[in-house]
């Protein structure tokens, strides 16, 4: 554990972030009880789920009683598509976001005015802790759209009083131009883009002195401590890790402090549990398990015990920064087959549903994920149907392009498409293992 702060140890909302533990637990219990009563009364999906589980709001008497409550999963959101979990009147919603679902349709989330205010503060917490100050400029290279990354960080930067450069995602050459010409102090991007930039500087393609960069905030993709060390040394900057997911809020669910001992979870807004994904029982403190979140303050889209499928560890030990909240380790994996490609969530079933729309494509496919030059690349191998027309390159290219466009429509990502003859890909018994992820996170 780091005993010394790596940068100035500051707080955006000191009172909330450093609340004494007993006070924090009392606040959580009070909010949990109010939440349970509210969703039981106003969200029919929860009324049903609580009834099935045989639990009434009045049964929640302690924080441990949260385990009496049913879990909420991504498929619950899907079954109640699009807004079955909305807990306020539609006219009070001020923002929608969404994340890719495994079937081709996104799962939507909604925010009230007060939710937006909380979200901006939670993003400001980790941005401020990581060194962003009023008067500075932060370039946001996350996509602006349904994805919570772009807009989430945007409002956190504004809340701090720094300038936002909403570059959005894509076009790495243009990103660099903006970074150089507007001299942003901070860059907010995916770890793969950060590595790409670091390599450009280390190889002499980019002149370090043309950049005013002081730090980066990275998230939305798995990355490693070694990658951070390499980039911090190569670029001479400070890099902070943060975590969030749209279902719970978006970025700002947790972020690092100046001591960098894991990511502090905003426990005044969320209750976190770490469970064994098989038994659904809590794991012992410090052990690896799936993170489960309950939102305490969200008005529009509160979720009870949402199973994130993200694998992490929780640390309850004292952190010298003064924050009292529990810390989570980096996400080390998933309990489902979701892939994170260039920050975007992708499920193999999305690719499957795109293939169903292409008559020449068989349902046999294989997804290969690699990271040449630090940028994720996906190649989808697809078997042609046995009676396919194969005498024309242009016709085959049309099939390939249609598959590519179909997948891009559903996932938002362009993937390389490789057409293969019938019966050449491996066949699987039972649960398919169609993904070959050869991305290395070692450096």
């Amino acid at each position: 554990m780091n005993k010394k702060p790596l940068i100035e140890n500051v707080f955006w909302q000191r009172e909330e972030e450093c609340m004494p533990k007993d006070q924090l637990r009392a606040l959580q219990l009070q909010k949990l009880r109010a939440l349970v009563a509210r969703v039981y009364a106003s969200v029919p999906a929860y009324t049903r789920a609580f009834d099935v589980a045989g639990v009434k709001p009045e049964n929640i008497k302690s924080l441990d009683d949260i385990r009496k409550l049913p879990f909420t999963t991504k498929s619950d959101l899907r079954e109640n598509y699009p807004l079955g979990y909305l807990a306020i009147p539609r006219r009070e919603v001020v923002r929608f976001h969404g994340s890719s679902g495994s079937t081709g349709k996104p799962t939507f989330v909604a925010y009230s005015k007060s939710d937006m205010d909380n979200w901006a503060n939670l993003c400001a917490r980790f941005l401020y802790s990581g060194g962003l100050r009023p008067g500075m400029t932060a370039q946001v290279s996350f996509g602006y759209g349904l994805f919570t990354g772009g807009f989430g960080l945007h409002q956190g930067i504004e809340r701090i009083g720094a300038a936002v450069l909403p570059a959005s995602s894509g076009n790495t050459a243009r990103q660099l131009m903006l970074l150089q010409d507007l001299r942003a102090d901070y860059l907010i991007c995916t770890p793969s883009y950060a590595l790409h930039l670091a390599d450009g500087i280390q190889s002499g393609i980019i002149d370090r002195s043309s950049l005013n960069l002081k730090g980066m905030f990275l998230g939305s993709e798995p990355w490693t401590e070694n990658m951070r060390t390499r980039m911090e040394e190569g670029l001479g900057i400070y890099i902070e890790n943060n975590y969030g997911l749209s279902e719970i809020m978006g970025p700002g669910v947790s972020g690092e402090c100046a001591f960098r001992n894991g990511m502090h979870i905003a426990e005044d807004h969320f209750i976190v549990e770490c469970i064994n994904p098989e038994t659904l029982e809590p794991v012992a403190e410090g052990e690896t398990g799936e993170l489960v979140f309950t939102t305490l303050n969200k008005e529009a889209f509160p979720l009870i015990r949402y199973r994130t499928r993200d694998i992490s560890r929780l640390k309850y030990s004292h952190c010298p920064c003064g924050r009292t909240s529990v810390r989570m380790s980096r996400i080390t994996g998933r309990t489902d087959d979701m892939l994170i490609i260039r920050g975007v969530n992708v499920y193999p079933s999305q690719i499957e549903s795109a293939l169903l729309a292409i008559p020449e494509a068989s349902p046999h496919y294989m997804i290969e994920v690699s990271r040449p030059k630090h940028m994720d690349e996906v190649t989808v191998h697809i078997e042609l149907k046995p009676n396919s027309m194969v005498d024309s390159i242009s016709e085959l290219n049309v099939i390939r392009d249609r598959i590519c466009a179909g997948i891009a429509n559903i996932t938002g990502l362009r993937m390389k498409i490789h057409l293969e003859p019938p019966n050449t890909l491996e066949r699987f018994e039972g649960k398919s293992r169609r993904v070959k992820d050869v991305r290395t996170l070692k450096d």
Partner: protein
Amino acid sequence: MKIQQLAIFLQNKPGHLSGICKTLADNDINIVTLSLADTQQFGILRVIVKEWELAAQKLEEAGYLVQLREVVAVEVDDEPGGMHKIVEIIGAANVNIEYVYAFTFHKSSRAVLVFRFDDPDKAADALREANINVLAEIELFG
């Protein structure tokens, strides 16, 4: 007269072409001519064989993706201007050539052009009207 050509989808992998040739060899099928079209990622092998039905069956049994296409084989003088004469007729008939490949053949100074047209019947009629020898299977395979 139209000839049956086999188009076989090729993976861009070592040994893939060899497997196709072996299937033909094992069944005692001689390749009269072939053409290989390739892209970065896959290829198409087009072959003309006398025993096309057997070849298609055996290749399919061996797991290859095979498509039969009708092509037009035309005899041409193996001398400067030989091909020009043919494509001029095709152009005048307003038929589009999807692809063409050529081979010389045991009939001395004559060569054979194999055409895939968007409208094979119209092309063959135009060629015959211009007294060009459109080959039948019997002539091609002797």
